[in-house]
């Protein structure tokens, strides 16, 4: 590793907003040929720092050096010209255009009279694509590519300039395991070419797999940088939140009640087939599997958003038909959906109104919504779930991810469901809120709820679930108890390699 010169160096960066110091004297060096993880809870200042690097915000004080030359960036394109390139978590591609046009968007090579020089464009792009070892060519329409390949197009964009530093912002959020490996190869390749890489992720396993150094921000302040090989998950977590994240195995709850929900031979088109399971009161049943294994579809069927093609659902021993979310809610089934921003919350509404939405018809005083009842309900769950917000009037879109998720959970808890389904309870949430939500799920089970947790994170299901259902391509492969599950046999089951 050549760590002679920093590719990117920040010195004393300060950025203030009314009432908050978002970045407080942050200094950081990313060496050439180094993969440098930047970690911190949501709200720690990572996004602000990225916006400063991208020229979206101007720092109030401090200097940015690229290859030891001080630079000032006025916008993202300018930053790119100066050698700082971003790979964003949310893709920003024009789907109807070809790969080549996307890669050189805004900088298409031209011939005389402004005509696009297609030959050069495709040649240059194919050159970059070869470097990335992808299996599509420059003429492919971007909309026809998988998400992972679209991400590759974003990366190809970064390679059109002589990048000194490439910043990856949660790049694996929507990638499958195989696709992740390809991404990691690309990162290793960039690294060997002497590019400094900043890698932002909440996923510890990735951090330990590919990064050389970890720097941590907390409350806008730089905490420390450590060599990845010299540190542990616990140590990083402690730096981020000032305490440990407990990811030990779930304590087995032997004190189970009656069967709350039982599903027999449930099928829904091509999504899942002949699925049977039961959940008792006081039990957490985990669903683990790859994206597309049919887990979310099962949840949506139980909540009335999809209609099963065959099979039965029994609630408290009685067979029920659920044909709409309203029916599901009435029968006592609640769903905390996978994507809180598009499915869980009306982002432009305030905290209270979001929380009371499913039961707004029952919050009446005469014909009107009872303000007092609503505020009382909100206050109750704000305190119970420790939701941090200046007040119920706060627009939900302004809260941090963790607090938003707690609003969604509060919304469904306040319905007193018999069965609570939680789909990806901690996606995109910082470590501190994560452990609070895990604790909450355990507490809910202990107080008698039947809870179904769907998660793509193995440590999470292992931590919260009493039993784990492993799914592969629409079928239940095996149901593990927390005594007989190991990481190995769980991975095998969800990859479809275990004989039944």
């Amino acid at each position: 590793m050549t760590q002679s010169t920093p590719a990117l160096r920040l010195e004393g960066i300060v950025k203030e907003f009314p009432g908050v110091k978002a970045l407080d004297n942050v200094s950081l060096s990313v060496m050439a040929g180094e993969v440098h993880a930047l970690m911190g809870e949501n709200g720690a200042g990572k996004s602000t720092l990225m916006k400063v690097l991208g020229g979206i915000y101007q720092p109030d004080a401090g200097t940015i050096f690229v290859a030891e030359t001080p630079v000032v960036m006025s916008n993202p394109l300018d930053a790119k010209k100066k050698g700082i390139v971003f790979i964003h978590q949310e893709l920003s591609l024009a789907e109807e255009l070809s790969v080549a046009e996307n890669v050189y968007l805004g900088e298409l090579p031209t011939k005389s009279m402004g005509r696009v020089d297609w030959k050069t464009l495709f040649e240059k792009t194919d050159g970059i694509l070869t470097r990335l070892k992808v299996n599509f060519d420059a003429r492919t329409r971007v909309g026809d590519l998988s998400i992972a390949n679209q991400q590759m197009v974003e990366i190809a964009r970064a390679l059109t300039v002589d990048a000194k530093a490439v910043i990856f912002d949660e790049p694996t959020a929507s990638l499958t395991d195989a696709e992740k490996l390809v991404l990691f190869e690309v990162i290793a390749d960039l690294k060997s070419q002497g590019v400094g890489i900043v890698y932002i992720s909440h996923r510890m396993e990735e951090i330990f797999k590919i990064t050389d150094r970890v720097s941590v921000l907390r409350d806008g302040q730089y905490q420390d940088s450590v060599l990845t090989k010299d540190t542990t998950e616990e140590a990083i977590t402690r730096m981020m939140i000032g305490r440990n994240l407990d990811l030990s195995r779930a304590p087995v709850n032997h004190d189970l009640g009656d069967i709350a929900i039982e599903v027999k031979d449930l099928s829904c088109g091509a999504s899942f087939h002949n699925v049977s399971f039961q959940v008792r009161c006081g039990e957490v049943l985990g669903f683990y599997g790859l994206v597309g294994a049919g887990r979310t579809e099962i949840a949506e069927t139980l909540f009335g958003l999809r209609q099963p093609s065959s099979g039965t659902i029994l609630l408290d021993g009685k067979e029920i038909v659920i044909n709409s979310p309203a029916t599901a809610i009435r029968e006592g089934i609640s769903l905390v959906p996978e994507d809180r921003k598009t499915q869980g919350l009306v982002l432009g509404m305030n905290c209270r109104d979001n929380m009371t939405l499913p039961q707004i018809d029952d919050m009446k005083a005469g014909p009107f919504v009872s303000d007092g009842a609503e505020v009382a309900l909100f206050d109750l769950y704000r305190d119970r779930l420790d939701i941090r917000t200046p007040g119920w009037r706060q627009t939900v879109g302004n809260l941090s991810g963790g607090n938003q998720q707690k609003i969604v959970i509060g919304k469904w808890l306040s319905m007193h469901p018999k069965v609570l389904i939680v789909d990806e309870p901690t996606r995109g949430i910082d470590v501190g809120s994560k452990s609070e939500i895990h604790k909450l799920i355990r507490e809910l089970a202990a107080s008698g709820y039947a809870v179904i947790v769907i998660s793509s994170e193995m440590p999470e299901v292992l931590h919260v679930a009493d039993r784990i259902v492993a799914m592969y391509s629409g079928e239940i492969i095996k149901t593990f108890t927390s005594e007989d599950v190991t990481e190995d046999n769980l991975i095998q089951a969800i990859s479809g390699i275990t004989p039944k």
Partner: protein
Amino acid sequence: MANTARQKILTVVGNHGILIAFVMFMLVFALASPKFLSFENLQSVVRSSAILGVMALGVTFVVISGNLDLSVGSMMSFSTIVVLDLHDKLGPTLAIPTMYLMTLGLGGTIGFLVGYLKLNSLIVTLGMLSAIHGLTLTYSGGKNMDIDDKSGTWFSFFGQGEILGLPVPIILFIALAAFLGILLAKTPFGRKVYAVGGNATAASFSGIPRARTVFNCYLISAFCVATAGLLQASRSMGSQNTVGQGLELEVLAAVILGGASLLGGSGTILKTVIGVLILGFIQNGLLLIGWPFYIQYVITWIIIILAVWLDISVKRGKFWATV
């Protein structure tokens, strides 16, 4: 720190922009013409805005639910023609409820198409604009509609009557605004309208029936249109087939000027009322200071652009988009 001060100004302007603009207008016109702020003039502005205002109240619901209603202009022509025709055939007591039912039928059709069949509201109501115009012409045979015995009926009460010295159209407008304002702000139904407009998916995931909510918004809009038709018919006691033509855009302008987002999820009845009054006072003020009548369309457009621009400037925190 200059940044912070600018941010604060932006926020204040953003939250109360419409009121600030309103007050500024009143001041400018008051200085330009002494008659402007007289009671008679104010009353005449509100009175002449009442028909537009009543329609804007209903469209506010549709816009907050995340949809558009471009059919209200021709639907108002329909209501006016129908009630005038039925007045002589059935008598006013039967004509009015029959006209309301027919108009609600049109609104229900739109509501069904947009709500239950999930068709795009722009397409549906733009089509309805011309379809209803066709219905009206077919119904009337293209002729103007007049009440035969104009002095021998109490029908003129709605458009021309007075209660305690206040014109009935103003009273109806205020009463309807108060009723719908409370419906929107204080009832579970109103909350559902905001939720469906703010995020239809999240509303469905909360068990809110999107289709029924949207359907009801179009019914409310049709009810308001019927009331506007009644006011129009009763004021003039006779009408052309095209009396409401072009009103759909003025109505939409008032709603947007009031600050409702075309994306849905925001807006209030009070803001719409202010939007309606601004439009009314602009027309009136321009006439009083002696500008040609037709220039009001241009000025109105400028005002709307200013309002929308201020609104998005605040949302993106700066006045210019540099890229």
